[in-house]
Structures are given as structure tokens and as C-alpha cells.
């Protein structure tokens, strides 16, 4: 139903020559998701060998590498090939643009502290989302952090000893589970599985060298 409406709208309103090719790109990326032309910003960063982040969305099956656009005041911005971005703070997701879920910002100071200290217990985290009516809704989540012991995971073909931390969160009407693997050697977050909101679900992340 909606797909027919979309196709009709696009054909009648957008399939046209205009002075810029933006509208043409919109048509192409709507009808053929995943085939959008690579963003020139991203190409420049790839050429400069910027650090990469491997991500995979569990629900949609979309996967790929993102490249670091930059870091300011502890927040890193990663860009996907088609120009969407993911924002992280010490490896924890704090926002997203262009993937469609609308996670605008987050306060993850409490889980960050507990996770990096390897401390179990109750913490609070906060996320704000842009909803479909262009309003921002902020949700608070009560989370329980547990130390699940050690686990050996392969990183670039090499086994790495990690400590596995699990964070179970719930709000009035949402529930999710985040999992983190910290390297035992240097305490760094090497791999994680995090929730990005109802629309996008769960994403797995792993930082890889550029």
C-alpha cells in the first residue's frame, strides 16, 4: 500500500530534471536502498586512512564499515558510505543520523563509569529520539550491569581475552540488552552489541584499524 503510494509520489513529483540532481538522488536511493552513490566526504576520509568501525544491524541484516569523521569533546562521529552517521562516546552509542531511528542524543555517563570500572549494579541511562511527528521524546532507562566473566573472542584472526559485561535496561514500555567485550590486556572496549531504539533495533560494533 505505502510502497505504491511512494512510487506514485516519486514518479509524479520527483522523476524530473531539475537544476540540481538532489531530487534524482532521492528517487534513486528510495527505490533502490543501499545503492546510493558514496558520499564524497566519506571517500576523502577513506583515502586518508581514517579509523574504521565495523557495524551490523541485526534486524535488517545491513552491515558495513564506517569511517571516523572526527572527535569533539569525547564524542566520535562515524560516517557510513552513504552519509549516515553514528555517534559514540568511549564506544557507547549516543546518537545516530540518517539511519532513520532518530536517536538524537544520550546521557550514558553512569553506564560508562560502571562499565569501565568493571562494577556491577544499577545505573540510569537517557536517550532522546526524534519521533515521526518531528517532536523529541526523552526516555529514561533503569539498567542493571553484570559481569559475565571472561571470554576469548577472535579479533582480526587473533584470539583476544575479554571480560564480558552485560547491561539490561528497561523503561515504561521498552526493554533492551547491551553486551560489551573489554580487552583484559588494556581495558579497551573491543566489541559490543547495543540497542539503537525501537525502529533500528540492535547493532553490533567493532572498531578496526584504518
Amino acid at each position, binding site marked *: 500500500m505505502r510502497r505504491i503510494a511512494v512510487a506514485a509520489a516519486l*514518479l509524479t513529483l520527483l522523476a*524530473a530534471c531539475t537544476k540540481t540532481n538532489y531530487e534524482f538522488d532521492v528517487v534513486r536511493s528510495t527505490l533502490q536502498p543501499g545503492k546510493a552513490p558514496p558520499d564524497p*566526504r566519506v571517500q576523502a576520509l577513506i583515502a586518508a586512512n581514517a579509523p574504521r568501525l565495523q557495524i551490523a544491524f541485526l534486524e535488517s541484516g545491513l552491515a558495513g564499515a564506517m569511517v571516523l569523521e572526527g572527535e*569533539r569533546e569525547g564524542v566520535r*562521529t562515524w560516517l557510513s558510505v552513504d552519509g549516515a552517521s553514528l555517534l559514540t562516546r568511549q564506544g557507547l552509542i549516543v546518537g*545516530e543520523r540518517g539511519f532513520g531511528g532518530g536517536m538524537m542524543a544520550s546521557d550514558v555517563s553512569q553506564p560508562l563509569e560502571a562499565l569501565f570500572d568493571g562494577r556491577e549494579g544499577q545505573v540510569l541511562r537517557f536517550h532522546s*529520539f526524534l519521533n515521526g511527528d518531528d517532536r523529541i521524546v526523552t526516555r529514561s532507562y533503569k539498567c542493571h550491569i553484570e559481569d559475565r566473566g571472561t571470554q576469548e573472542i577472535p579479533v582480526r584472526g587473533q584470539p583476544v581475552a575479554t571480560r564480558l559485561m552485560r547491561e539490561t535496561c528497561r523503561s515504561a514500555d521498552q526493554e533492551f540488552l547491551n553486551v560489551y567485550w573489554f580487552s583484559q590486556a588494556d581495558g579497551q572496549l573491543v566489541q559490543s552489541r547495543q540497542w539503537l531504539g525501537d525502529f533500528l533495533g540492535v547493532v553490533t560494533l567493532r572498531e578496526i584499524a584504518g
Partner: protein
Amino acid sequence: MRLALCTVLGIGCVLLAEGSAKAQNLSTYGTPGLVDMPTAEMLPDGDLAMTGAVFRDTARGTVTFQMLPWVYGSFRYSYLRGFDGGGTGSRYDRSFDIHFRLREETRHGPAIGVGLRDFGGTGVYSGEYVVLTKTFAERWKLTGGMGWGRLGERNSFRNPLSYIDSRFETRPPNDFGTGGKFSTDQWFRGPAALFGGVEYKVNDQLSLLAEYSSDTYSTETARMGFDADFPVNLGLTYRFENGANINAYYMYGSTLGLQFSYVLDPRKPAVPGGLDKAPPMLQPVDRVALASWNLPGRDARDPTLREVLRARLEQQGLRMVGYDIEGGRATVEIENGRYNAAAQAVGRTARIMANTLPPEVEAFGITLLRNGLPITSVETHRDALYELENDLDGSWRTLARSEIRDADERPVGIIEDAYPYTTYRFGPYARLSFFDPDDPVRYEIGAAFVGDLILRPGVLLSGLTRLPFVSTLDDTTRVSDSVLPHVRSDWALYAQQSDLQVNYLTANYLWRPGPDLFARFTAGYLEEMYGGLSAELLWYPGDERLALGAEVNYARQRDFDMLFGFQDYDIVTGHASMYYDFDGDYHLRVDAGRYLAGDWGATFTIDREFNNGFKVGAFATFTNVSSEEFGEGSFDKGIRFEIPVAWLTGRSTLPKIRQTIRPVLRDGGARLQVENRLYDYVRDERAGRLVGQWGRFYR
């Protein structure tokens, strides 16, 4: 009713009102109900339900809109094969329904509703009812009610209301005439009958329906040989997760029925957060300082800086037409060519200014223009952006630290080569006309060229030309029988006698005569049927709910070939307009004045405009033309929809799909359609909408 868990802080404490008569099923009439009978249920507030139902010799297409939490209204287009001409002709019937909730369902008491079906049409479906619905054990919904008119036919009894007033005892016959009048002299009159039924919810997808119908289909039986002797209807409904429903029925012991419906929530577009490419991140201030154009010794007035800024904005679909830098403050003027939420255009501009301009420039002034007409200015600060870009409540805190004001004073620094400027689009177009008296859908498909040439700020030449390839608009054999001047009713002649159409071709001047004031002057071929002159003045304070406008036009009717010639008819027409924003997405507009046929009166338009731009509305025009002079329909009225294309695609674009459904287009209450009417021209970039969509500032 269940109270959901609250979080420790009490944020996000939600009341989940389960089982409180929220409609699970739509009837063949496209309203919350069983098979043919209504229930007292409501749709979720703001939802839009589209239903198509077919059974023997009958098809019904209905759009139902839950206008308020306690009121829904429907527009229906029905096809009755063999209804007219002794079984040889078919009837296309248009009808409107309205339903009010009188009482919400509670733990011990039922929901109660009262409704009017086909309250203003030609009366084929006219009937009224009072209905009660109660949920039992979460799975059973029992409904019982009393109907009048068509719903009061089977085993009818004396109207209980007639014990109060004997006028209720008899129902005057349907006039089946011109229709369009409220048939108040029939409502709740004549014999009444009881109806009832049950819905059993097997699981979240499947429900079973059974009802006892008080409708005997007496007219259809007499005219079409319909058989409704058996009073019971059975059905099942299957719900898909995406909001679609399929229903199958066994009706009146004589026919099978099939129905498809789709319920849409305008607040839920294809993609909630949007798929736009991410805005550039705010670069650390030391990196900004290191840019070659910001190195010590460079002058902030160096054109390189301006050109870098301009190019970066251009990449985001923002055209910079004015630029000034003075001490610690920079001002830019922006034409937003991409973002349907103006706040998003402002946010991206602010980011690019912060990333490009030297760090000592701390205050950013951003003025939104449309074809050189300044609309609104936003003043924000570099510090606020750095501090709040990743703040949990960043958008609103940024708004609190910004200033939004009317943009009536122009800054210095118009970029020399910003004008003249052209925009154009060449491509296919489709034009649809729904539900006219003879055909459910008429269409025209062809190629269109639309272009604007902006000579200098506010001065533009604007044109639209179309070449239809396929059209059924001109298939109509109706000849206007209007006794008024044929100001609109000859529309078919325009379709028939034109090939290449010049839809409009105008010269415009738009300017700001003072604070909160906008003005427009237009001359040329104003619209498809009229050419002439048009002048308009609008008073639109940015932060108030009320706006007032006035427009006066001299219009002369164009030739049917839609080229450059004129006919003899001419008129001075104009309106005074009032626009008012109510709480909760409602918007009222009243236009009073003289219409094209020389009639005097007023048009009332009420829209529900969701914050994301999705709009559903209805309008009606009352003039000193009598309903006899007006002809079929009695007065001009209709419903309209406006859907941003971005709502469907998730990617920011300015175009909107607009569709008006008007039962009949006639000559009374007809208004001139001038392009660039000021209110709609500036509204999306005035403070009200800008603040409403401010959540998209950092998107």
C-alpha cells in the same frame, strides 16, 4: 485499563488504556463497526482509515478521519449497479457521516456513541443511530443500538422520541434531489429499530464478527433485486502488522462480501528519524582556526572565506544570497531549497558557519528567504552549538539560547551574482480528480515544465506549462447547466479544447512593507481559467496565533484553449482572510468576500495539521447564491489532504502532494486560484512552524 510500570524518575510514565473501545474493525461503511452496523468504538485520535468493500452489485469506498478524540467523520463514494433507470443505470453516490462519542467505556459501563450516516447527500444511505459497546473478558465486544431511517427498517416500532414530540413520528421522504443540504428535517424521525452484534477476538490478528442488521436494504431490493430477508451477517477480519486488514463476509444469507482497509497514522511517516545524510559534525574550534582562509593575517572580509561558506552551504541544498561579517558577528541570508522543516535548514547553516568562519566570530545571524523575500531571522551562538550538539536536550536548550525574530530589516551585503537566478523542473505530472458524479477517478498524465526566474529579491517571473498525453478529464459528456456565469463549471471545455496548456504565467513582486507585514502584486495569466491582476497584503506576527490578510483581484476569463486569449467575462473579486492556529494541530481559516460569479459570502476551512506537515482538512463556502441557483450539491464544499513527499520517502524535500476532493465543481462560491498566496508562501518559515519542528535543528 492497566497502569504501566513507571521508571524510577517518573519520566515516561504511561497509561496504557487497553480494551477501552479502540476500534479493531471497520465495517463495510468504512467506520468502526461490525459488518453493516456501527459500534461505539473510536479510532486512535488522528488516524485516517481507508476502506473498500464489495458485495453484490455494491461497492463502497470510504475515508474516515478521527478528527478529535471523540469525533470521527467519513466521506464515502459508493457504486450501486442497476440502482437507476429501472435497473439499467448505475448510481455513483457520495455521502458524509459523522459520529460523536458520548461516553467512554469504563470498567462497568459501555461506550456510547451517536452517529449520522449520509447526513447531507442525496440520502441513499441516510440513517441515524445511538449505539453502546462494551468489552467483556478482553476478547468479547458486545454492541447494541437503535437506528432510524435506513437503520430503522427491520421489525421497526414507533419512534420513542415521538412520545416527547409527535414530529418525530414520521420521516419525510428523501428528496433524492440536488442533495448537499443537511437533511435536518429527517434526522431521528420515523420508525426505529434495534440492532446488535458481537466481535470475538481470536488472537491479535483474527476476529470473528456476527450481527443482527436492522437495515432491510428496501430500496436496493426494490430497484436492484437485492435480497436481505435474512437479518444476520457473519464475518471475519484479519489484521496485518502494517495496518492493513482483510475482511470476508457472508451477508443477509444471500451474498458474500470482501473488504480491504488500511489505517494510517499521520504521525508515523515511513521513517521516523529521517534518512537524510548526516549534517557535518561540529569541528573542534582549533581545527577551524587552522583552515587556510582563517590563518592569521587573513582578513575576515576576504572573499575566499565567503566563497568557501557559500560552497559548503550549497552542498546542503542551501543557497546563500546575502553575507555580512562585522566584528564578532556574521549574518547570512539563505534560500532553503531542500528541507521541509525550516529548523533543519537553520541548524545545518549554523553548523557550517561554525565550521567555516574564524573562531572569533561568535554570533550567527541566519535569515530565511524565499525568492528574495525575507521571512524570519534566527540569531544563535557558536558556544551554544559546541555545548549542546550532543546534549540530551540539545535542541530545546539551543532554542532557549537563540532568538527568533521577524526579518523585516535587510542586512547589507547582498552577494552580487546571487541574482538573477532560475529554478526549473521538467518532467512527468499526474493530475487526479476523484469522485465526481459520473466517474470515480479522472486523470491526466503528461509532461510539465515549471520555472521561476528571480530577477532580483522579490521580483520573479513564474510559469507552468503542461502537455497532457493521456487524459480522461475531457471524457465527460456533461454540459454545464448552471444558471450562474460559467466561472468554473465549463472545466471540461478547458480540458477538451486545450493541447499545450499554459497553466500560469505571471510576473510577481513580493516585499515587506513593514514589521510582520508581507505584500504581493501579481500580473499575468494567474491560473488556468483566469488572467488579470492580483494584490495582497498579509499581517502575520511570528509568535502569535492570528494572522490577517486581504486580497483584491481583477480577473478575466481565459480562452478554453488555455493559451493567451481571453473571453468576455471579467470581474473584480477579493477576500479578507483570517487565519488562526488552535491548540492541538487545528487550524482555522475564514475567507470572506466576493467570488468569481459575483456572489458574496465566506469560505470556512478547518485543517488538522500535524507537526510533521501532514494535513487533513475540510472546507465549505456559503454565499448569497441559493441552493437552487447553485445546482447539484447546493453549496461548494470538499475535503483536502496535503502530504509532504518527505513523509513518504524519509528524505527531506520541499514538494507536497495536494489533493482536494470536491463532490461537484460548480459556479457558486468559486475562488480565484492565484499562485504564491502569501500565507502559505511564508508559513513554514515563520516562527510558529520553525519552533514546532525545532527538534530537527541538529538533524
